[in-house]
């Protein structure tokens, strides 16, 4: 069966071919050309778009074209077809409409998303150049229109494409032979950002332009400068000026768009600070080929004003892109950290271990870990100072160091001393960690070393004591020394370790959870009950720090 093909109208998509559907499901994203009608959607494998979900009907919907427009038609599906969140039977489709078939949010289709590339801007430009440029007013209107459109379209545009399009427009309107855009870098130098000839060829080097004219134009307060290279200092010496090489130059400084400050009385006449220059447009033309010196000043002024806004806008968009990508990187880092932090609790016959962490941020500095060795079952609980990425980075390093040394059966005080040496030597600023490592043997002997951490709770029957031996945190002072302590656990005894996020959990009145509440609930309660008590106490007040509770019960 042959389906009629459709030629998409060229005003809908810049390339003049078919409209597209972008299908998104979870992490998967696919672009499909709507190149025939009817376009079928459903669960059956012979559909044009197969969505494998039980809520999607086998023959769910079709997309058809009629008189150049597209419509989605529900085929009597069980769970409905939705356009932009509203259930429809038959709906004509507009660009960027969001279609859902039976399932919401998990899988959806965007109809003909508009990618604002310079393609569309170029089309507009080609429309302009096709028109006869006659009066100045028409030129100005067209330029303003064009730049307005380009600016609006520029919501996802790339700076370089915008620059090239800007140059093309400037060249068309000034009728110059070639044009360049220079932009200031962070350290104040001008770099060549784009170059074009009036024939549309890229110009990649700026050796034949007059940098002295460029610099003078930038220093001046003028909106634009029209001059010629016979005035230029730098070119005159370098090449013999023959009439053939003489060029008219128009240089338009691009000044950062600023909010107009109200002028204070008495400051008139005193030099205002010029708006910050961010670059320049430089177009020139040989005398012999074209005279551009009589180009309309209004046009040049309009270019000066609008171009700067355009570039600034594009730069902001680039910065947003960079920020978005950075956020993505952070999200990846968070998931890696999550993986590292996942604790496999070793099973031993003489003890039971459980632990839980409640993060107040996606990425944090608390962690706990457990290692079983011939020396017994070891548990580590640590809290790195500060929050966020830097704390997490240190936490991961700390975890690795301690884990490997425990497996190597180093004595506990030596482990923390080694960590302290590592961190104090490495000049990582004022980052440190409080750590507690406890190791229990099958016979109930408990060895622990506490480095600046909240004292653990030893629960034996009804009694709750706080083994008080302690040391400095790790990473704080270079010459710190560390010692451990011992005690004996009876079967049924348990050691509860927490981070200070627990004792410092705050409620809306500014009260802290504190030791006495912790001791009250830890004595009898399980991990769930401890976290429940914290949550009840805070009563909705958000946590300001990560909370971790680890319970080591000696069964004997």
């Amino acid at each position, binding site marked *: 069966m042959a389906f009629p093909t459709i030629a998409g109208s060229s005003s809908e998509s810049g390339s003049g071919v078919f409209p597209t559907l972008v299908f998104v499901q979870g992490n998967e994203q696919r672009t499909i050309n709507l190149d025939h009608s009817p376009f079928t959607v459903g669960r059956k494998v012979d559909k044009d778009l197969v969505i494998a979900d039980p809520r999607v009907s086998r023959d769910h919907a079709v997309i058809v074209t009629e008189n150049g427009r597209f419509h989605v038609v529900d085929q009597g599906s069980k769970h409905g077809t939705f356009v932009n969140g509203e259930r429809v039977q038959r709906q004509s489709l507009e660009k960027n409409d969001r279609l859902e078939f039976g399932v919401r949010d998990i899988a959806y289709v965007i109809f003909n998303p508009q990618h604002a590339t310079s393609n569309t801007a170029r089309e507009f430009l080609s429309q302009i150049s096709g028109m006869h440029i006659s009066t100045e007013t028409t030129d100005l209107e067209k330029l303003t229109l064009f730049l307005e459109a380009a600016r609006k379209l520029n919501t996802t545009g790339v700076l370089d494409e915008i620059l090239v399009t800007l140059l093309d427009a400037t060249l068309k309107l000034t009728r110059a032979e070639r044009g360049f855009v220079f932009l200031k870098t962070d350290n104040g130098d001008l770099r060549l950002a784009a170059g074009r000839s009036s024939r549309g060829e890229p110009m990649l080097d700026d050796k034949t332009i007059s940098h002295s004219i460029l610099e003078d134009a930038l220093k001046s307060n003028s909106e634009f400068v029209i001059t010629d290279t016979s005035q230029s200092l730098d070119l005159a010496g370098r090449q013999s000026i023959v009439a053939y090489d003489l060029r008219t130059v128009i240089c338009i400084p691009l000044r950062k768009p600023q909010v107009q400050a109200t002028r204070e009385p008495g400051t008139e006449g005193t030099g205002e600070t010029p708006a910050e220059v961010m670059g320049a447009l430089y177009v020139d033309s040989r005398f012999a080929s074209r005279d551009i010196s009589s180009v309309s000043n209004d046009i040049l002024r309009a270019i000066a004003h609008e171009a700067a806004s355009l570039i600034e806008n594009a730069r902001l968009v680039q910065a947003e892109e960079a920020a978005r990508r950075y956020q993505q990187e952070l999200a990846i880092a968070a998931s890696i950290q999550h993986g590292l932090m996942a604790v496999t609790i070793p099973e031993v016959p003489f003890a039971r271990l459980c632990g839980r962490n409640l993060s107040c941020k996606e990425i944090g500095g608390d962690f706990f870990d457990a290692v079983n060795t011939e020396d017994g079952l070891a548990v580590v609980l640590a809290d790195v*100072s500060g929050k966020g990425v830097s704390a997490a980075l240190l936490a991961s390093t700390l975890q690795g160091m301690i884990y490997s040394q425990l497996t190597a059966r180093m004595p506990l005080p030596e482990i923390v001393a080694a960590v302290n040496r590592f961190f104090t030597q490495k000049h990582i600023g004022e980052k440190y960690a409080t750590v507690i490592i406890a190791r229990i043997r099958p016979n109930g002997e408990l060895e622990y070393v506490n480095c600046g951490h909240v*004292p653990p709770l030893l629960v034996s029957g009804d009694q709750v004591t706080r083994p008080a031996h302690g*040391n*400095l*945190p790790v990473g704080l002072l270079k010459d710190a020394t560390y010692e451990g302590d011992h005690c004996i656990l009876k079967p049924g005894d348990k050691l509860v370790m927490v981070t200070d996020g627990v004792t410092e959990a705050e409620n809306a009145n500014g009260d802290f959870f504190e030791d006495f509440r912790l001791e009250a609930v830890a004595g009898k309660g399980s991990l769930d009950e401890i976290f429940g008590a914290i949550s009840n106490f805070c009563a909705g007040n958000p946590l300001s720090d990560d909370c971790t509770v680890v319970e080591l019960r000696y069964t004997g």
Partner: protein
Amino acid sequence: MTLKMESHTTEGVTVVNCQGRIVFGEEATELRDTLKKLLASTRKLVLNLSGVTYIDSGGLGMLVGVYSSARSSGADIKLTGLGQKLRDVLQITKLVTVFEVYDTEQQAIAAFKKA
């Protein structure tokens, strides 16, 4: 910025009074800068924390950092005005063995004279 700092010199000792919260971020940074600036011209500094409602781990790390670098260049920082909470923290972290803590500003200043 929830931290206010004020400093004055008495009997050859610079006293810095802090009010507010000393936390990781702007507050810790400002206090560190202030202390470092003062330590450029004095070797005797008393830090009065009676107006401080809260110090977090970052703030504590900063204090220890400033203290260490002060000591290594021959200066000294003595603490006074510690509330119960801060005393507890210094106890748990064993920083009581590192810092010299005095009950009153006068005692801290006097301790410099004895040295």
